[in-house]
């Protein structure tokens, strides 16, 4: 597994990939992609046991991941591309007709690494719970991970899944929330007033961990801690993040939830993000 400095290099490149992909596409979701970049980089390059060479959708004998917040497709594709699931050059096709990099993750278009479509929010946690239950039935000890947005947890199905996973003792399920406090129409607090997510997940019978979602060493450590719990309860890691993190004019606002930078803005962002692995 990659060391911290290496992970930081990857996440810097992934951020460049996100901005460049969305700029080329002319639309897409950069804000949440940037807030969850360090989480997914740590997961794919530092923690998760999943090999692109032997990956299959069924995930037998491997860890599995479902992106519940499907609009984070840019970061998902960038991480998968950098991890070797498909040629990085394909990132240039994001959201273009005929691409495997559909606007939201798709099975039908056959991009390796994708386990289940997402985009309609609040559903990935249920599918991840099904995967975790299946692994339990098979006596497999691998983990199932999923990433939700904090705005996404306004969906009622999230809490159906929360009850289900706790009731069935799915301690091989590690869910993560990109807690960036932003959604399309404004801050989560203004739009929906979710309240105390820590207490809510605890009340639903989950192990709840909190972590700085931009400290990549801490992310790796908290994921390893989550794996070690195995106490009959699923795990929710609430990652404190900043929407648009890494690009000063995009950071901390909902305004970049679903908007592409101009070419000039892209160039400005590139000055702030080191090219570490070579642009696609």
């Amino acid at each position, binding site marked *: 597994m990659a060391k911290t400095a290496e992970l930081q290099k990857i996440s810097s490149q992934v951020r460049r990939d996100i901005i460049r992909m969305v700029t080329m596409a002319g639309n897409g979701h950069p804000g949440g992609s940037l807030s969850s970049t360090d989480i997914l980089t740590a997961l794919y390059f530092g923690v998760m046991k999943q090999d692109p060479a032997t990956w299959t*959708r*069924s995930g037998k004998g491997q860890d599995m991941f479902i992106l519940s917040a499907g609009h984070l497709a840019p970061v998902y594709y960038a991480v998968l591309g950098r991890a070797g699931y498909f040629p990085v050059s394909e990132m240039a096709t994001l959201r273009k007709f005929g691409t495997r990099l559909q606007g939201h993750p798709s099975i*039908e278009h056959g991009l390796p690494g994708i386990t*289940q479509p*997402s985009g309609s929010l609040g559903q990935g946690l249920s*599918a991840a719970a099904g995967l975790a*239950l299946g692994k339990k*039935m098979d006596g497999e000890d691998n983990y199932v991970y999923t990433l939700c947005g904090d705005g996404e947890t306004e969906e009622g199905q999230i809490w159906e899944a929360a009850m*289900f996973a706790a009731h*069935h003792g799915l301690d091989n399920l590690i869910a993560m929330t990109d807690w960036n406090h932003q959604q399309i129409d404004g801050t989560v607090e203004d739009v929906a007033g979710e309240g105390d997510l820590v207490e809510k997940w605890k009340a639903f019978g989950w192990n709840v961990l909190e972590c700085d979602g931009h400290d990549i060493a801490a992310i790796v450590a908290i994921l390893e801690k989550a794996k070690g719990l195995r106490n009959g309860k699923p795990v929710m890691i609430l990652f404190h993040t900043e929407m648009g993190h890494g690009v000063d004019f995009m950071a901390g606002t909902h305004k970049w939830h679903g908007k592409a930078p101009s070419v000039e803005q892209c160039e400005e962002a590139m000055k702030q993000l080191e090219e570490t692995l070579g642009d696609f």
Partner: protein
Amino acid sequence: MDCNMKKYIDTGKKDTRSGFGAGLYEAGKADSRVVALTADLKGSLKMDAFAKEFPERFVQCGIAEANMVGVAAGLAINGKIPFAGSFAEFITGRVYDQIRQEVAYGNTNVKLASSHAGITLGEDGATHQTMEDIALMRALPNLVVINPCDFNQTKAATIAAAKYEGPVYLRFGRPSVPNFTDPDEEFVIGKAYVLNEGKDVTLIACGHLVWEALQAAEALEAEGICAEVINIATIKPLDEEAIVASALKTKAVVVAEEHNSGGGLGELVAGVLARRAPTPMEMINGGDRFGQTGTPAELMAAYGLDAAHIVEAAKKAVARK
């Protein structure tokens, strides 16, 4: 006039949901990948035998259908063959988007077990009586839509659904209805079953209205009209060839279903015939309205879903030739 019709015998009324339960049990015995899920309706879905024999493969989801559909998709990706069951309204309309994304678009090997379909759910009234589910489900790419006609065929269709690789919507009902198909006949997905050959009019039906169509054919024979009766047990993919061949022969068609007019089997068949063999058609369905409280028999009569109405519709269709 003698139409040389095959006689079908009701071997004793049985509910089609029990056919599902029996098929689920058989499928579970035959294949350890079969898993059953329900949203607090184990007894209503007749899953008790399966749950008792295979408790490790029975998943109680509580009253949370949206989550159940997602969990079923996850289990399917894992390699299981999940049957997720609830009342027809709650496993279609309530979770349409979940089915669309997790089952149909994801093309997961999930079997949606849809009980208490249609108006004959009876006394619970319109909140529980979906007459729109066929329209919703047949609109989804990748999804196979099956509506067998009696206990025996529902059992066989359940076993066939388990063997089929891909998402399936399996529709059945609550009330006891005549059981008349061969208990040993294997169910073939996508095949129309021609139960009687005739030359004057084609009666096309699905679900328990197939029995009503057979009764109507007997009544029509007495009036000198020889009716062909086709059981469309698989609504999608539709056996277009059987429908077109019959329409070209009889030149008059009636479609009967326990479903509203919008998007049901009638409109589906009309679409096929408009393209390939324009034919005078009459429709027997629930119209464009909600159900209401009543016994199944009362509701069938009130909504015109019985043999007597099929006979009248057949005469009208014949007169339009």
